[in-house]
């Protein structure tokens, strides 16, 4: 027994649709239908249009900070497609617009959110997803809690929780994966590895060759996929979701993609990105290969491309108009959503809009009435 093997494991890598649009037919079998791919590609166009429009809104001062999702479309949509809409539960971080929209989030909500309005995070009851998260990594545990509740209630729902490569360094994502595994909770951890965490590259974030291999730390399956390949992303998530649904616990899926944009509109990636990297990544843009694939199958052409973009532009213009029409938030809401029932002092703060005590409640607290009131 002396020097033996305590553990042996490996992490597969999956690519089905290569950058030139060639499909591995045998791996693709039973994954996405032609109609699926077409539909998902239309979603990509819609999202790309949304992304660019939001960028422009920010630049013209109509939106606060905005994090573009450019490049993430396949990684998000492949996962979203693998979920049962309205049944499985999506836990986004802040860069999953494509998945959120796919699951039905009204598109102007995201504009409201980044426009500094909580109502953009008031996810409608029929949309099976949690609010966006700004504090990196915290959402993984909420996802596990959700999955645990599903298990507790014997519902066959599965959670897909997203996070970035940077998030893997947080204690919370570690604790989430550990809990998920211990509880055998029905959850899939979907790590979007876009090569950067703001300005920090992978080799400053981890000493490991892949993020997927972190699954081994938790005794759960892990898989790395080409995150620009909608087939691979879909298949890996579908298998992981079905495995979780069967009661076999979580999987970690790493989707390798690239952030073809600055971190947010407040960032300037030219300060830190090596020359040529962006250009190389642009060639791997998931939209390019998805379109190539569709064209090869004669499912797409320039005409459809043009029409879809036009439709996307119209849709996004509508969405922006819808966002513009939203009445400004009521400043009473600063108070009203702090608790189910407001304590008396908070009611005073709300109704008088100040915190200093004089005049807060003259009779009751035995002070002289405040001068302005006396003048009435």
């Amino acid at each position, binding site marked *: 027994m002396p020097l033996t093997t305590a553990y042996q494991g490996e992490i597969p890598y999956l690519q089905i649709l290569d950058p030139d649009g060639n499909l591995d037919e045998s791996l693709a079998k039973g994954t996405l239908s032609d109609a699926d791919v077409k539909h998902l590609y239309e979603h990509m166009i819609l999202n790309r249009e949304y992304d660019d429009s939001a960028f422009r809104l920010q630049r013209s001062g109509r939106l606060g900070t905005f994090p573009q999702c450019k490049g993430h479309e396949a990684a998000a949509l492949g996962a979203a497609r693998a979920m049962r809409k309205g049944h499985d539960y999506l836990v986004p971080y802040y860069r999953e617009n494509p998945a959120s929209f796919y699951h039905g989030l009204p598109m102007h909500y995201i504009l409201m959110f980044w426009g500094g309005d909580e109502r953009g995070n008031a996810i409608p009851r029929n949309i099976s997803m949690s609010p966006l998260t700004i504090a990196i990594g915290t959402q993984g545990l909420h996802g596990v809690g959700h999955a645990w509740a599903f298990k507790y209630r014997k519902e066959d729902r599965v959670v897909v929780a997203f996070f970035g490569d940077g998030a893997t360094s947080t204690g919370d994502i570690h604790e989430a994966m550990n809990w998920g595994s211990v509880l055998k909770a029905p959850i899939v951890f979907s790590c979007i590895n876009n090569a950067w965490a703001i300005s920090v590259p992978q080799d400053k974030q981890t000493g490991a060759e892949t993020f997927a291999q972190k699954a081994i730390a938790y005794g759960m399956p892990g898989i790395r996929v080409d995150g620009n390949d909608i087939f691979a992303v879909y298949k890996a998530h579908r298998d992981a979701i079905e495995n979780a649904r069967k009661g076999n616990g979580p999987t970690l899926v790493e989707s390798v993609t690239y952030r073809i944009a600055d971190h947010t509109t407040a960032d300037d990636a030219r300060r830190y990105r090596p020359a040529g990297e962006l250009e190389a990544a642009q060639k791997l843009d998931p939209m390019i290969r998805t379109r190539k694939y569709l064209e090869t199958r004669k499912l797409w052409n320039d005409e459809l491309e043009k029409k879809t973009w036009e439709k996307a532009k119209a849709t996004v213009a509508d969405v922006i108009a819808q966002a513009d029409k939203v009445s400004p938030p009521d400043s009473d809401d600063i108070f009203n959503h702090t608790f189910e029932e407001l304590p*008396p*002092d908070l009611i005073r703060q709300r109704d008088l809009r100040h915190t200093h005590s004089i005049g807060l409640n003259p009779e009751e607290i035995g002070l002289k009435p405040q001068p302005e009131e006396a003048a009435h």
Partner: protein
Amino acid sequence: MPKLNLVDAINLALRQEMERDERIIILGEDVGKNGGVFRVTDGLQKRFGEHRVVDSPLSESGIIGTSIGLAQAGLRPIPEIQFEGFLGPAYDQITTQAARVRSRSRSALTCPMTIRVPVGGGIHAPEHHSDSPESIYAHTPGLKVVMPATPYDAKGLLTSAIRDNDPVIFFEPKRVYRTYKEEVPEEEYTIPIGKAKVVQEGTDLTVITWGAMLFQCLEAIDQLPEEVSVELIDLRTIYPIDIDTIAESVRRTGRAVVVQEAPKTCGLGAEISALIMEHCFLHLQAPVQRVAGYDTCMPYYKLELDYLPDATKIGKAIKDCLAY
């Protein structure tokens, strides 16, 4: 009526609420098989099963973080943090997440959970087992904070906390766990969160305190000359603060002493002192006095009694304030 100590009263409240509402899950380190390091959850796993009373990994952020998910999904988690000194790793999930679920989602989501935490010094424990962080959480909008001092109050307040639709931190003064018994009804009852209790009426000075310090205050008052009439208020709820009960009293007595275990600076005593000034300025005969822990780290236990307010220190503050 049976006389129960704090541990048993809390255990009883947990049991009754779990029977009443099967959405309740208890989770935490050693809460299941072992019944908690203070035995507060003793017998509950046996009674309700491993799926409802869950021994968790050693991971406070995970305890609160998963509880948030459970709560958002419609369950009613009661996480336990083993000692207040280990709230630190859960601080982020409590303050930036649990406390903000309702606000961030404009009430589309809520986060009903009761975080149970033994608190305070005086039990000869190692480092991180004797702190009093209540003002930290009182400063965090979106949280309610409760700290009963007696078994009766604990049962009623815990029941209210569990039924509350917002996150509540329920601090249990561990020094009192087994040192004080009183009659506690078997039947369920609630005590409203946000209501202080006048423990003893008086006319010369008001003492305001909470948690284990209640007993030190009682001792101090006991040792005062008979002619001194002190009103004693047990805050019971840390946030929202029941300033009405306090102000009503101080307007009568004109003098107040606030007693807390926590370090003085930015403790809850500061808030209460400021509130008293704001609400009772024209009635104050003396500046509100604070008897508090020093602005130092809580010492290891050989010196803990030198650190903590006791009857002598409290008595001196009362006398100084009366003589002002």
